């Protein structure tokens, strides 16, 4: 496990350096938007990670309820934490980009709003975990919530979209025509952040396992 973690960290590092090179040096500066457009690469490539991370929570929740193995719960928790951090990044980089381009920090557009609702859902998920002492009970409750919460995400997205389409949208995101070098930069960036997610997930999981080991040793020593 130690070895695998090292390899994954190494790969993440290389991918990140490459992504930064592609974004800042290889890809040209956008004519209309200028340098601010660079944040777009990071924003778009992180934006899908919360969906992935919370889907992992959903899957691991089902697997935990089915198999009753603690490791599924640990992965679910790790993924929720990493997903929430990256979702926070998405919610910060979004407005930084939106302000100069759309003229507002925030608009209640379906994707934005869904990111925010997911943030609230999984902040709740982590708060719930903190509020239950007993280990097995915590895992069960978290799994039930992790299951129910994820199912609500697509319904939320749909309802926000309908709510919007019935009303005229005042601010429309301007369509972006991408140059080929920009597209390749975006793809590299996307891959890099996806690897980054798995790297963080593994590190978080490893940390939790170490914590458990320490607890075991402590109780063995009669602490």
């Amino acid at each position: 496990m130690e070895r695998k973690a090292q390899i994954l960290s190494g790969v993440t590092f290389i991918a990140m350096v490459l992504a930064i090179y592609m974004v800042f040096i290889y890809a040209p500066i956008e004519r209309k938007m200028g340098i601010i457009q660079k944040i777009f690469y990071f924003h778009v490539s992180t934006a899908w990670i919360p969906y992935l991370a919370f889907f992992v929570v959903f899957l691991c929740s089902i697997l935990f309820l089915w198999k009753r193995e603690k490791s599924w719960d640990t992965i679910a928790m790790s993924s929720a934490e990493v997903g929430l951090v990256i979702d926070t990044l998405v919610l910060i980089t979004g407005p930084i980009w939106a302000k100069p381009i759309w003229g507002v920090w925030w608009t209640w557009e379906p994707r934005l709003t869904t990111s925010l609702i997911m943030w609230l859902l999984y902040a709740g998920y982590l708060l719930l975990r903190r509020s239950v002492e007993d280990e097995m009970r915590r895992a069960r409750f978290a799994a039930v919530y992790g299951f129910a919460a994820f199912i609500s995400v697509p319904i939320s997205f749909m309802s926000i979209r309908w709510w919007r389409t019935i009303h005229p949208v005042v601010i429309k995101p301007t369509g972006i025509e991408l140059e080929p070098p920009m597209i390749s930069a975006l793809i590299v960036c996307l891959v890099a952040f996806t690897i980054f997610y798995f790297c963080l997930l593994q590190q978080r999981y490893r940390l939790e396992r170490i914590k458990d080991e320490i607890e075991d040793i402590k109780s063995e020593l009669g602490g």
Partner: protein
Amino acid sequence: MNYIRQILIIVRKDIAAEIRTKEMLNSMLVFVILTMVIFHFAFGEVFEGVEIAAGILWAAFLFAAVLGLNRIFVHEKDEGCLDGLMLCPTDRAVIYFGKVVSSLIFIFVVQILALPIFFVFFIKMIPLSTLWLLILLIILSNVGITSVGTLLSAISINTKARDLMLPILFFPVIIPILIAAVKSTGLIMTASKFSGDILIWLRMLVIYDIIFLLVGFLTFEYVLEE
């Protein structure tokens, strides 16, 4: 003994307990009225439109619902009745549906009592021709609210934070209901007759209700385990 009968027995027990104390109904009703008064002063003279009134109605309903849902397992838990309920030779799903039905009834009673007050305060007239549609909408929303709320209430009552936990878990999951309810209430109160737009939202509510009744049915046994 079939399922329906078992569920009805739990409902009857809950109603009998509630009639004796009236704790939940009284506090929910006062709370709904209070919320409306607070919204009135918060928005002052600014608001005249039906859209805002619909928003106020549903914000008040949701806050009151969370208040009631919080109580739905409190007595069971504190008096040790939950263990008794769990020892009953029934499915856990029966307890779930029983609790869903009783909270449906309590919340609906409060809403029906609060509705005239809402019209007097904010709309100044009652749209009699579409009132049935509003009632239908309220019932459909309530099914979603209670199916999610009962499941999450059973979870939050067993945590350290207790009452604090339910709104945090409940509100983000219930957002589709809020959107659909506010939208269609606005449409119902402005349109004099049935329109296709309302149907879209009602359909969404039905889908939501079915999905979350199923989620509750599937997962409730994992909540009440031990």
